[in-house]
């Protein structure tokens, strides 16, 4: 089996929003970054994976297990981390640890102790008095110490300082170092996703806009600047693969998909002084999601 997570035709309907139909593939051993604007459906997708709601169509398979038929086995192998997970009812860190470890035969006490030291948590700490960053670390600790095969993180670095962020990603890299474990991380921190995730998927309005290896996705697009003759616009509407971002008289800025053949189309249109600039994932994200605003 080469894929850790396979989502096919997933649909979830709400009164004012519909997720999907969504197809998403997370290869085994990858760190997969799921990105998208607020309300794109990232958390809904993750929630459905863990049975926090029922999908209207489609299916999710995690390590070959169906998310509905094999939910208990799935949750044995996959861990979920989110700032929304609240462990406050257990009062102290030690009690939350004791509660959670009882569910996982593979719980690693040595690793748990090492993580507690690294995250500056102690068994006697009151959860209610922890900072939001420390609460996220606790959630991560509870997930990592069970040595899950698939780790799903929803906004795991919200509220973390720069050092803690690095620490979290270091632990994640270590977790997938053996090539067997998989991480699906949803985050708004695009620079971190670009640095640490080897695969990326872009969600928009409940649909997957792009998916692939991070370097390939970023490399595929360029910011293109070109000029037309004074007073002349483009002869025909821009084709797929060319997204006009802004224009000022005869100077144009656009997002170019290098695989689409739009560059040749530009030359046929008589575009002059065409310059291509490499984008970061964040630039690409902003360009893609500003589309509606421009149009």
């Amino acid at each position, binding site marked *: 089996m080469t894929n850790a997570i396979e989502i096919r035709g997933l649909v*979830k309907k709400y009164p004012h929003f519909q997720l999907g139909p969504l197809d998403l593939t997370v290869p085994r051993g990858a760190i997969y970054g799921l990105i998208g604007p607020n309300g794109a459906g990232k958390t*809904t997708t993750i*929630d459905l994976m*863990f*049975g*926090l*709601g*029922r999908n209207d169509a489609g299916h999710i398979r995690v390590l070959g297990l169906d998310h509905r038929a094999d*939910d*208990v*086995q*799935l*949750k*044995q192998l996959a*861990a*979920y981390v*989110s700032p*929304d*997970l*609240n*462990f*406050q*009812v*257990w*009062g102290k860190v*030690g*009690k939350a*640890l*004791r*509660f*959670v*470890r*009882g*569910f*996982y035969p593979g719980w690693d*006490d040595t690793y*748990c*102790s090492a993580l*507690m*030291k690294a995250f*500056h*948590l*102690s*068994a*006697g700490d*009151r*959860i*209610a*008095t922890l*900072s*939001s960053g420390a609460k996220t670390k606790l959630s991560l600790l509870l997930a990592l*110490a069970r040595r899950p095969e698939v780790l799903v993180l929803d906004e795991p670095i919200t509220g973390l300082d720069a050092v803690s962020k690095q620490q979290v990603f270091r632990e994640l890299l270590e977790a997938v170092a053996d090539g067997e474990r998989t991480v699906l991380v949803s985050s708004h921190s695009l620079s971190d996703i670009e640095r640490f995730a080897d695969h990326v998927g872009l969600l928009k309005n409940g649909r997957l806009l792009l998916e692939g290896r991070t370097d390939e996705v970023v490399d595929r697009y360029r910011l293109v600047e070109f000029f037309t003759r004074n007073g002349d616009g483009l002869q025909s509407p821009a084709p797929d693969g060319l997204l006009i971002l802004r224009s000022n008289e005869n100077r144009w800025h656009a997002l170019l998909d290098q695989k689409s053949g739009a560059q040749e189309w530009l030359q046929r249109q008589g575009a002059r002084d065409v310059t291509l600039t490499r984008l970061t994932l964040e630039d690409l994200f902003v360009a893609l999601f500003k589309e509606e605003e421009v149009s």
Partner: protein
Amino acid sequence: MLDHLRRWWRVLAVAGVAEFALGALIAGGPQYTFEFWAFMLSMWTSATLISFDFRRGLLRPVAVLPLTGRQMGRAWWLATVPIPAIVLAALLFSGAGIFCYFGPNHPFPTYRLVMASLFTSVWLGLQFTLNFVGARGFGRNPQEYIRNSLLSVVTVVAFFGTMLLCNNASNSPLRSCILLGIGALLTVAGWVLAEQFDPARAGLYLGRIEPPDLRRRASRLRLPKPKTAAAQSCAPGTGGGLRFLLSTVCVRGFLQIAGMVALMALLWLWQGRNLSLPMDFEMLAAMGSFMPCWFIVFYSLLPLLRHLRVLRTLPISATELAGVLLALALLPPAALGMLLASVGWLFSGPAAALAFLKIYALALGGVALCVFFAVWRGAGVQGYALLLLSLFGFLFGHLWLQGHFHYSERTLMVAGSIATGCILLALVLTRLVLVRGSRVYREETNPSGGFPMAASQ
């Protein structure tokens, strides 16, 4: 202040109509006791409504407005104590006046109306104090810590004590004096709390509880000790999982409600009631089951349900989770019912044991439905209304069964059948909501996950 009244006008209007009807009931004759209903109506017009807002995160946006803490506290006090007290009193008198106008044979019950209005006023004050005492945090020094803890204990005892003692209290000068005296003191305490309100200290409602600093001043000069390796050691011990959850929550819940019933029985005896009389015994059994179930639902189950997201991501099936939630709510009252039945059998014979068993069986049915409603609707106003409806429904169901079956043994069978049906229904419905619902896992961010009396405390 207007914002509060505007947002809650529907609830306030319903309570107003009910208060008007209560006025008519009081005028209907001296045989109708009004105190318990006046207490319940005061609850739905009091600062309890603000506590709902706080749990939905009201304090954070209000705290950044250009208002002093004192202004906020004063506005909330005015909106939930004197204004409702005046309006409710006016409605009460109007209801009675209209009843007497159309039924001239009924004398205007001035004394009872004045007593009802006074009780309502102090109960509104008591509930303000009850809800706002948590907004002071633990305290910044030992004196404040002791003072706040003492006030918390006094208000909680006064709240539950009032529920117990209020029935027909206007006919007993001693009980009236106690209720009005303590209520008046706590109303004043509430005003002081409102005057000293400081959003910065209301960490509970801002998502963080500041721990009490009980060290001596001198010790603050010393550098804090670094965390030792031993302190950071994981070693959470064995026996975790559901067994750990069930044992801790259920044992704590059982001890709390057992203490509550013991206190209730002592109060009952102090009032001079004879527990060997079936009627008194039935009454104690009814209150002794209703109050613990109320406590378990509101102070043990609801705080736990705020962590439903965590529980659902654990490797247990939805059926198992539904069963665990039901067990967490049902086991403590079930164990208490068995204990009370045994004690009743020893001291008063089988009739007493039967009285406890049948009322507890019915109450368990109500609690089971509460579990479903709490999972389905969450801790919002609708959820609370459904919970109260279930609990009161079963209390009145008990009274109805009593009236129709006249203490016969068939009551236990009927109560047992109803309870079994309700528990099974609640299991099926709770499982269904856990599997199908997505809203249940997306409850509004609740900053007061660690409510002062939550299971974790």
